[in-house]
C-alpha cells in the first residue's frame, strides 16, 4: 500500500460510488471514475489511480492500463483552466485548420499539447469534432467555436492571456 497522501475527496468518492449500481461489474466504473477525477483536478495523478482501483476492487495497473489507452487523461500535471482542441481532420483541414492551429500556437507561444505559462490554456489538435459543417472549428471546454477566423482566435487567446 501507498503512504502518499489521499487525493480523492469524499465528494469524489461519493460521485464515483454513485456509478456502481449502474453496471454489473465494478470495472465498468473505470472510465466514469477517471472523468470524475479529471473534471475536478484537470488530470488524474497516479495516486488517484491507486485510490480508484481500491474503490473498484481492481489492481491499480488495470486502471492505469485503461487510462493510458486514452491519450485523453493527463497524469503529470493539470491541463490549463481551459482545454481547447482545434480540429485537424479533413473538413477542417480543407478550410485551413492547419494554418489556424499554427497561428494560435505561435501567438500563445506554445506547441500543440502544451499549456501557457499562466496556466490558463492548453491548446491541442483534435481529430474530427463532429462539427464539420462549422469548419474550421475548435472545442474549448464546453464551448464550440464555429467557423473560426484568425481574428476570433486572437480574441479568444487575448481573453486567456
Amino acid at each position: 500500500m501507498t503512504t502518499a497522501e489521499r487525493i480523492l475527496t469524499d465528494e469524489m468518492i461519493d460521485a464515483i460510488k454513485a456509478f456502481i449500481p449502474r453496471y454489473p461489474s465494478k470495472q465498468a466504473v473505470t472510465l466514469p471514475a477517471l472523468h470524475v477525477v479529471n473534471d475536478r483536478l484537470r488530470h488524474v495523478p497516479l495516486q488517484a489511480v491507486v485510490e480508484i482501483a481500491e474503490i473498484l476492487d481492481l489492481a491499480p495497473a488495470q486502471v492505469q492500463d485503461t487510462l493510458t489507452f486514452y491519450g485523453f487523461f493527463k497524469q503529470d500535471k493539470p491541463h490549463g483552466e481551459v482545454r481547447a482542441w482545434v480540429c485537424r481532420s479533413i473538413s477542417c483541414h480543407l478550410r485551413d485548420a492547419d494554418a489556424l492551429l499554427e497561428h494560435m500556437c505561435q501567438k500563445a507561444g506554445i506547441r500543440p499539447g502544451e499549456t501557457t505559462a499562466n496556466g490558463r490554456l492548453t491548446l491541442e489538435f483534435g481529430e474530427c469534432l463532429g462539427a464539420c459543417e462549422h469548419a474550421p472549428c475548435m472545442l474549448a471546454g464546453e464551448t464550440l467555436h464555429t467557423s473560426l477566423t484568425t481574428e476570433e482566435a486572437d480574441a479568444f487567446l487575448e481573453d486567456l492571456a
Partner: protein
Amino acid sequence: MSDFQPILLANIAIENSHTRAVYESTGGYAALRKVFAEMSKADLIELVKASGLRGRGGAGFPTGLKWTFLPKEHPGPIYFCLNADESEPGTFNNRILMEEDPHQVIEGLILSCFATNTTTAYFYMRYEYPLAWKRVQAAVDECYEAGYLGKNILGSGYDLDIFLHRGAAAYICGEETGLIESLEGKRAWPRIKPPFPAVEGVFHKPTVVNNVETAACVRHIAERGADWFRSMGVPPDPENPRDPGSFGPKLYCLSGHVEKPGCYEAPLGITVNELIEKFGGGIWKGRKAKAAIPGGISMGLLTAEEFDCPLDFAGPGRYQCLGLGTAAVVVMDETVSMVDFLLNSSQFFAHESCGQCTPCREGTSWALKIMQRIKAGRGRLIDLDLLLEIGDNIGIIPGTTICGLADGAAWPLKNGIRKFREEFETYIKQTNPSGFAETEPVPALEMIGVH
C-alpha cells in the same frame, strides 16, 4: 423526391425542439403508446425486419435481422448499447439529432430495447459532444418523470433504464466491440468475431449495438409502418441477390468546399451531384470540384466525374469506394492537392489505430511516414507502390486485421493513388527531381531530420 418532407429533421427548427413538451406536441411518444397497446416484442421485430431498415452507423447491416440473432428464450440480461461515439471524419448527423431532437432518439431506443427484451441500455457518447450530453441527459430525466423510463413503463409491465456513458476521445470506441470493451472499463481493443455481440457482448451477455440514427428510424417505422418506410429509397439490385435494398430517409452530412455545408435529409439514393446542387449551394467560390469523400473518410474517394454516384448502400461500391459508410460527403475543390488529402487521411488513421493488430499499427504509421516524406519533397515513385501494398493488405477484407478501421485506412490510399496516380507522380517528380527514381530503401523522414 421533390415532394420529400424531412422526417428525422422535421422538428429541429422549432424552438425548444429538444424538450419533451415540444416533442410531445409534435406527436412524440405516440409510437411508444401504440406499440405497448397493440404489439408484442416479436411483432415489432417483424415490423422492423419488414421495413428493410439497415443500420446507419456505417456497416448497413439489416437492423431487424441483427435483433433476431439474439438467443431465443434467453434468461437475460440482454444489453443494448446505443452507439453515439460518432467520430468518423466528416460526420455529424448523430450530433444534430441528439442536440435538437433527443427525444426522437430516446423513443426509438426505448422501442428497440422493448423489441430486443433489454432492460438496461447504455448510451455511449463521445466526449466531445458537451451540448448533446446535456440535452440527452435532460431528456432521459424527463422520461423518468413522465413514466417513459423506469419500472412498468406506461403500465405495460416493461422496465427499462438508460444510462449515459461518456467516452474519452478515441475513434476506435465507435467500433462496436471496441465500444463494448471500453464500456467494460478496459482499453478499447476490438474483439475477434465471432462470437458476435448478439451472442456474447458486454459483460459476457447478449448485446445489441445500434447507431443513434438507426434508433430514430425505428421510432418512425413503429408509427407509420414498413410499407411507408419502403416507399422511400432504392429497391434491391436485381443483378445482386445479396442486396437487400436501401430504404428510408437518410441524414447526409455535407462539408468541405461547398457554399452551404450542413446536415440534409433525403431518401437514400440521392447522388453526390444532387446533394451538392440541391442542398449545398454548389461548389464554393465558383470553383470546380475535384473529388469527394462519399461517406466519411474511411470510404475512399470519388473523382468529380463520378459525382453521379447514388448515395445508397450499394452505390459507392460500384465506384470502387468501400461503401456508403456514414453518408458524410466531404467535397474538395480543384485547388486541393491529393498529396495533402492523403497526408491528412494517413495522419488520422495512424493516430487512431488502436495498435492491437500489427498490419494496422505498422501499416498506418508507415503510410503516414511515407506521405510525410513525399510531402517534404523526398518522395520516390516506388513509394506509391509501397502505399498501395499497404492499402491492399490491411483490413478485414484481406483478412489481416481484427476490425474495420484498417479497411477504412486502406481505402483512401487505394482510391487516392489509383484514381489520381498521375498527380502523385507529377508532384514527386517536381519536388524530388534528383531522387524520384530511386528504389533503394530510405529511412523515415524524422530519422533523417527533415521536417
